[in-house]
């Protein structure tokens, strides 16, 4: 066969393969979104939002307690995760060249790569063994997951503040630290908040660390040294159970999580490209 024709065919073939890989990647994505919506919608009714986990054998039920529990856990985790991440990000961006910063940045990357189950075991070993399966242990695990994310996004957001803005503030006779806290921070606030939202979306979906540090809980909030119900973990427990209504609740919970994740991702994209 004519060599040129061969090259041409090969070129077209490879191009098709490249586009095929795109399709292959998106089939699961669309399937997941589709299935979660279709199967999850059938679980959504008023009860879904106001009733707690049904007992074995009980018909219907809801995830109200799981929503409460998840919000509490995320809230507690953010109490530690956000301030630490913010200050770390500020430090890394303001004193970016120092030896200490390089090491800290590297270590944050390392922590970010640790599997969440291992962080769950860490929380188990550190907290659960002392005070028992509790929302405190779970919140700790989630905070540890949050910190590298918030640190990195804060640092990047601050680095994007143009030098001219900082110069203008310095020329007004404002001390360095005030320039950072007031001018630089407010200039970067959109990106920083987006980073925090993304980290919250991430920890809202975590279930492995929750499972081993807190465990499953069927009731409402009962104290900081007790577990709480968790939306993501419930999906796991309900899915593996033999009860039809529990499985339905699993899909409903998955729907809520996906919607929340979708909203935050879209918001983040818009903020970061427009801002």
């Amino acid at each position, binding site marked *: 066969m004519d060599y040129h024709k061969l090259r041409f065919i090969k070129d077209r073939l490879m191009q098709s393969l490249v586009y095929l890989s795109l399709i292959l990647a998106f089939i699961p994505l669309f399937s997941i979104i589709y299935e979660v919506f279709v199967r999850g919608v059938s679980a959504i009714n008023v009860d879904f939002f106001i009733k707690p986990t049904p007992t074995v054998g009980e018909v219907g039920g809801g995830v109200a307690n799981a929503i409460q529990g998840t919000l509490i856990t995320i809230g507690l985790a953010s109490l530690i995760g956000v301030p630490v991440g913010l200050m770390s990000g500020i430090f890394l961006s303001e*004193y970016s060249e120092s030896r200490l910063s390089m090491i800290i940045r590297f270590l944050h990357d390392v922590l970010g790569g640790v599997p969440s189950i291992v962080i769950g075991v860490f929380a188990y070993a550190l907290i659960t063994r002392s005070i028992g399966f509790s929302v405190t242990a779970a919140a700790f695990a989630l905070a540890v997951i949050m910190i590298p994310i918030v640190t990195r996004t804060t640092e990047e957001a601050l680095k994007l503040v143009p030098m001219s803005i900082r110069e203008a503030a310095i020329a007004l006779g404002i*001390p360095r630290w*005030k320039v950072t806290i007031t001018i630089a921070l407010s200039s970067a606030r959109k990106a920083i908040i987006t980073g925090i939202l993304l980290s919250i979306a991430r920890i809202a979906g975590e279930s492995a660390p929750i499972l081993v540090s807190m465990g499953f809980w069927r009731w409402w909030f009962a104290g900081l040294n007790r577990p709480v119900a968790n939306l993501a973990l419930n999906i796991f427990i309900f899915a593996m159970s033999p009860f039809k209504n529990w499985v339905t609740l699993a899909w409903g919970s*998955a729907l809520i*999580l996906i919607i929340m994740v979708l909203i935050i991702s879209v918001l983040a994209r818009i903020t970061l490209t427009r801002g």
Partner: protein
Amino acid sequence: MKMPRKMPLFFNSLNLKFSSQFKNHLKGDNLFKLVSALFASSIFLLLGLMIYTLIEGSWLSIQTFGLNFIVGTTWDPAISKVFGALPLILGTLVTSAIALLIGVPISLGIGLALSEYLPRRFGFAISFLVELLAAVPSVVYGLWGMFVLIPFLREHVYPYLQTALGFIPLFSGPIYGGGVLTGGIVLAIMIIPTVSAVMRDLFSAVPNSQREAIIALGATKWETTKIVVSYARSGVIGAAILGLGRAVGETMAITMVIGNKFQVWPSSLFDAWYTMAAIIANELLEATYDLYVSALINVGLILLIITLLINVLARLIVWRAMRLTRGIVRE
């Protein structure tokens, strides 16, 4: 018209001698540096504490089994109370390898599509969709895997696979839908966002002069692409290793589809198996005595070490590859 020049009140009455507030400003700067450094240094405490508590928690198991834990193949919490992690390590590595075999080529394709083939406008939309894949929680992947993927594979894919390749032991044996291959497929889907994003960045960083050089010689699009990939090849390997790091640590998705069966080696790709992450998730709550708990924490420690090694290796390779690609380092 004469404008009043001086503010009649506060500002000029402030003592604005040059040195009066100097100490305060210096103090402010130094205090700020100190406080933020303290917060940032909490990472030392966190990582140190993590390594310490994991070792301390594993200590009983380490004392009892020593290095035999890594090569031991028995996991008997009920009767003999002997624990060994080799099948778990194998299970983790094999499923991750399958994930790489499937996921890396697809990620390569996506990375190339985004940097070489697709026009800019599509690039943003596609990148966004890929990010969406990354944002889906692991447990939702597991749910979908259990109720959608497994029945699909069981009815429409595996039987044909077995018909075609059943003479190889890997593809023989009973099909129930989940198992090693299914686990690998789910993991592949989960690593695609990370790996393809790194690849796209790598390929975009290849200087245009390289492409222009080969095009000027009359190359087709594919031939040009080959040059780009070969220029960035060490980075491609690094990206794959990064994906490996993620696959190894996956817990919920894999435990919901792999079958959770402790055995040294599966009878086929359709057989159930177990991974390090999955056994911790499934059994830590059931562990009723100290040695059992310690053995599971020990598994967690091994998982941590493997992940750290993989991630550090991957980052070193990718970092070095980016520098080479940008022409900063001449080799």
